[in-house]
């Protein structure tokens, strides 16, 4: 009796879960253009790329640049906001069409995902407290406790850099970069490692609290938007790719970079062989 009920339950579960598998995967470009909406997953805790500004509005390079991409493709942009560690799993689950993180283009990620053309440089630099004179160059963090965002490429670079220093560094991982900045301001850690555009923005917003430690260190890397390698997504991603290159070629991308980072970056059209 008991065994039969277990078998019944399993068969039922199989039917419920298995039936929809037979559904045909629709081409993503057709779906997006017919709905007129491109769904983009992002984390609104990545200033100046993507954040909620002091008036409570969703702002940043992402909002402006995807606005342009939407114009090029004739679609509206719908944002889905998640904590960063949930973004890539939800992309694979098909909860949105692409990711507007952006994310650092790395070998491991490029194997699993398709990257759009780079939109900014992502090389790592350190943020310190403005009144901390003990850190003048990146090497001065030797023996100190520093922080970085969990599962970020910059964290890996920071760790590798720390190992190369005499005495090493202790690295604390944070769920989000903002928590790391808050701990730095509170004096719990000596520095935060993150990409130069991010920390330059943070320091420019709070010059009394934070300062950038020059120069950046580690391998030169770039930020790009992410899509999947699913066959049904490729035509859509080709269209986004083309839109970004057009926006870059006519100078709109450089303008947006100046607006949000204070400087324009010289980025390649595609990163075929990431150094990281």
């Amino acid at each position, binding site marked *: 009796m008991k065994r039969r*009920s277990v078998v019944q339950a399993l068969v039922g579960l199989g039917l419920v879960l298995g039936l929809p598998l037979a559904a045909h995967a629709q081409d993503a470009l057709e779906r997006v253009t017919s709905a007129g909406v491109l769904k983009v997953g992002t984390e609104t805790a990545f200033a100046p790329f993507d954040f909620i500004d002091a008036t409570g509005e969703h702002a940043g390079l992402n909002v402006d640049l995807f606005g342009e991409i939407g114009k090029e493709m004739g679609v509206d942009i719908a944002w889905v906001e998640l904590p960063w560690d949930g973004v890539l799993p939800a992309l694979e689950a098909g909860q949105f069409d692409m990711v507007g993180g952006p994310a650092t283009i790395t070998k491991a990620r490029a194997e699993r995902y398709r990257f759009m053309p780079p939109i900014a440089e992502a090389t790592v630099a350190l943020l310190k407290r403005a009144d901390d004179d003990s850190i003048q160059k990146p090497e001065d963090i030797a023996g100190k406790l520093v922080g970085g965002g969990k599962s970020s490429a910059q964290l890996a670079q920071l760790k590798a850099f720390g190992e190369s220093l005499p005495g090493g560094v202790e690295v604390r991982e944070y769920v989000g970069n*903002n928590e790391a900045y808050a701990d730095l301001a509170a004096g719990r850690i000596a520095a935060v490692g993150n990409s130069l555009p991010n920390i330059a923005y943070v320091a420019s917003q709070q010059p009394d609290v934070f300062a950038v430690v020059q120069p950046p260190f580690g391998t030169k890397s770039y930020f790009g938007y992410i899509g999947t390698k699913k066959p049904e997504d490729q035509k859509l991603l080709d269209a986004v790719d083309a839109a970004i290159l057009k926006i870059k070629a006519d100078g709109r991308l450089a303008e947006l970079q100046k607006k949000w980072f204070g400087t324009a970056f010289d980025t390649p059209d595609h990163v075929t062989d990431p150094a990281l």
Partner: protein
Amino acid sequence: MTPRLFELMLWAAGATVLISAVSILIGLAIGFLVCAARVSRTRWLSTPAAVFVSFFRGVPLLVQLLLIYNLLPGFGLYVPSVVAAIAGLSLCTAAYQAENLRGGFMSVPKGLLEAADMVGLSPWQQMRRIRAPIALRLTLPALINEAILILKASSLISVVGVVELTRMAQNLAASTYRPLLFYSVAGGLYLVINWLVAGGGSLAERMLKKERA
């Protein structure tokens, strides 16, 4: 804090209340069904109900939410953010509420039911006039407790892309660099909401008592 930012916090508190309330009600309905199945003498009803309770009570809510949001689409079942949030909260609370209700139903004195049999009340009449009223009265405090727990646990639903009170506080704390202010306001709003829930619960308890007298 500007009025606009406070308005955003209130809006997020509204999202927390709305999603929690819907989940608690759906959870109560599912909980009733699961409880009924669980106390049934038929094995093929009671076994799945027991499995349901042990799964949704045994797996952390955060993991349940991620499974609903990220795993089901793999089987062709597209789950929007709000639906995933409500489904996760409802199923989780249903498991607890089913157990609360079961406790309530088990506490109905056997003698009452025997007496009801004697005077010829049908099982449905016994349920409506004896078992359900007694069980509800006994489980009301536990239900209020559960409602408050779910209101607080709803801070987890940001992982499936729903901006609620805690997430809004995080976002605004990050953009204004004033974490203390926004987390205090969020904490205060949760406290006020839960006071109201607890107050409503006491009121309901008093009314049930009066009705009985």
